[in-house]
């Protein structure tokens, strides 16, 4: 799975993207975040405040309960501040 990170999520993880083989028991956005948080202290710091995390699956916003089955690209970022 292609993972993309933006803004301070990217800064805390220390990279903008990475390719990861996600364990088969990781099936929702929420469980993906739980699993990613175990990968490094940077991942843990970036994902500590779940209320400040937004996720898009294949360029569409996704809820925490959404399935990641079949997802090619999952992006993780803070609430947007454009406009």
């Amino acid at each position: 799975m292609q993972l993309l990170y933006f803004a301070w999520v990217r800064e805390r993880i220390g990279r903008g993207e990475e390719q990861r083989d996600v364990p088969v028991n990781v099936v929702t956005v929420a469980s993906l975040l739980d699993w990613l948080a175990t990968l490094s202290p940077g991942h843990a710091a970036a994902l500590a405040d779940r209320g400040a995390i937004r996720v898009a699956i294949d360029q569409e916003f996704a809820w925490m309960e959404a399935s990641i089955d079949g997802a090619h690209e999952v992006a993780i970022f803070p609430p947007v501040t454009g406009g």
Partner: protein
Amino acid sequence: MINVRVQAAAFDAGAEATALAAGRTDIGAIVSFTGLVRGDDGLTALTLEHYPAMTERQIAAIAEQASARWPLLAGTIIHRHGRLLAGDPIVLVAIASAHRAAAFEAAAFLMDWLKTRAPFWKRGDDGEWVAAKSGDDDAAARWNA
């Protein structure tokens, strides 16, 4: 029918709005919104990061929604990314319709949406990321009634 552009370059808000009605006589109202970088708290510049694959796709989708909801005749949405100075224009939403209510409402709807759903993130030159405002979520929610 609504043009969408995501670009680093500056834009001419006036020329974009005027171009919507060029050569036609069915447009009675053009509403143009320009957002600018405010120099609050000593901010002199900021950098806009975005998610390119998602940005144009999502803006195009919301432009479709606006076109379905209001009788729009033309429109242009431009959102910049990259480094911008205080006072620089950052976003343009220009909407043309036969009558003013549709143009005002669609432009406000699109801006509320861009503020809450378009994948852009602002970082000040001090390295601090701008925090999202709950007021923006409230503004966007009014369109779901």
